[in-house]
């Protein structure tokens, strides 16, 4: 049995669809577990995705997120379902719950996995290291295995005509499970689309010449329904928040389309975006390293090219 730990608030996150897809692709029955105040909504959505069972954990202990309460809930779901593989999305929450669960179950944990294969009877996980400058293949040798899955690496689960049964799961929480409970949330200033899960990213670098020109990036991103990214240089210069930084000390992304504007392509930046399916580079310098990995390139000034792109996309959509 494979167990997928669901994530989302109003709706199931895209990565949870992908995690169910990854679990189903391995064959065998798949269970899912949803924890928290939105558990029932998430379970309902997941129940149509070809899983055999969805467990829900609700109640005052999980009314707000607390990592140890989530670990306790998932640990209980593992015991209940008899799962030997537990899949999470590689989100902020998924990563920390998975790591503590690994310690609790003394289970091997592969982080940020981009492919799962079977070698004889053993599972082999492929995962980027050095932000994608290399990949490691690791074999699971513990009885139970855990993986967090990189967004955009697995195909989402197809809908199934039959709905799975939704079953509340009773969990015995301890007082310490609530130490570290979330007390509030500040919404980020970033765009509507989350960088790591985005289908399209429009990213800007020093070639934009100043923070005052980043509206050109934002306008194209808005037109494309894309997320906004930035190079380390402009984050360190204070033009953009570090939440937008793409690269080895920022986020590693693999969107369907990555548009790099005024970014020369430092080694640490290229590491963070080179697994994108399609790369576009706009740069004044024809020798910029970014052109070596770009499927389409424009030698030109991003400040002049961007408005024309935005206009052309607008016409396309009209």
């Amino acid at each position, binding site marked *: 049995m494979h167990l997928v730990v669901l994530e989302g608030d109003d709706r199931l996150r895209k990565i949870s669809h992908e995690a169910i897809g990854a679990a189903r692709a391995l064959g065998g029955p798949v269970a899912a577990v949803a924890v928290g105040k939105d558990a029932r909504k998430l379970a309902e959505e997941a129940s149509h995705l070809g899983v055999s069972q969805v467990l829900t954990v609700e109640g005052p202990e999980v009314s707000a997120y607390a*990592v*140890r309460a989530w670990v306790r809930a998932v640990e209980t779901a593992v015991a209940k379902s008899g799962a030997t593989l537990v899949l999470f999305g590689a*989100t*902020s929450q998924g*990563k*920390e719950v998975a*790591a503590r669960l690994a310690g609790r179950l*003394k*289970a*091997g944990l592969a*982080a940020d996995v981009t492919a799962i294969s079977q*070698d004889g009877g053993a599972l082999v996980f492929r995962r980027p*290291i*050095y*932000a*994608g400058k290399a*990949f490691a*293949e690791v*074999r699971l040798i*513990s009885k139970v*295995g855990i993986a967090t899955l990189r967004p955009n690496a697995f195909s989402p689960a197809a809908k199934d005509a039959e709905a799975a049964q939704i079953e509340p799961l009773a969990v015995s929480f301890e007082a310490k499970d609530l*130490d*570290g*409970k*979330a*007390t509030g*949330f500040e919404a*980020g200033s970033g765009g509507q689309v*989350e960088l790591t899960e985005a289908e*399209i990213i429009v990213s800007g670098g020093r070639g934009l010449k100043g923070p005052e020109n980043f509206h050109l990036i934002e306008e194209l991103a808005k037109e494309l329904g894309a997320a906004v990214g930035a190079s380390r240089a402009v984050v360190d210069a204070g033009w953009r928040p*570090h939440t937008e930084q793409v690269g*080895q*000390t*920022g986020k*590693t992304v693999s969107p369907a*389309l990555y548009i790099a504007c005024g970014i020369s392509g430092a080694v*640490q930046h290229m*590491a963070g975006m*080179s*697994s994108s*399916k*399609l790369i*576009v580079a706009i740069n004044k310098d024809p020798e910029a390293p970014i*052109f070596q990995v*770009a*499927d*389409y*390139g*424009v*030698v*030109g000034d991003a*400040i*002049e090219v*961007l408005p*024309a*792109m*935005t206009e*052309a*996309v607008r016409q*396309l959509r009209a």
Partner: protein
Amino acid sequence: MQTVVLIKQVPDTATRIKIGPDGKDIQRDGLTLVLNPYDEYAVEEALRLREQHGGTVTVMTLGPARADEALRSALAMGADEAVRVDGKPQDALQVGWALAQAIRTLSPDLILCGKQAVDDDQAEVGALVAEFLDLPQATVAVALSVDPAAHSASAKREVEGGLQQLAFSLPAVVTAQKGLNEPRYPSLPGIMKAKRKEIAVLSADLGIEPGLELVRLTPPEARKAGTVLKDLSGADAGAELVRLLHEDAKAI
């Protein structure tokens, strides 16, 4: 206040990575090794808390003798003591276990580390240490405030779409994200002092079975340069690029 900062020596992020001949490790000849960038934020935070609340800062790493250099970098920033746990762990479970056992002897009020090391990119060790020591945690923290007298702390951690605020008790494990602070540069006297400082060496307790074994390392798929538009006006290039992305690549 006693703080332990867990650090790791990693290749500089400007380094190009090549796979070694055995396929199990990267080529290490001529690599520039540095203190993991996220650990710099952790060391800085510990130093700031010491300035605020007093106490000592102990930096700790798990690794071979060459990792002493990373400890000395942290000592040069201002850490008081350094411990190297000597051993060859096979996976993150063993790293977390060995560090947890070594930390236990120090009974710190706070354990800090980077949110992840930029070599293995696992982001597992902080949470594993917290789990093995049965402590609360705040991972990917961009703000931290502690009240040692009340044994309480609060943090803001980066999550998708914003910042999550947490309240927790001390001792606890906090992992540092970029934005937590601006790390200081080592001072010249700091560097001189760090050179002479004795590093305590413990032998790693690897009393937990590993959960993963490395099969091999592979390079990423090679990409090649594609169509490049030159000598067009900005307006023409923009329009042509969108046409190519729409009609040719069917990406928009």
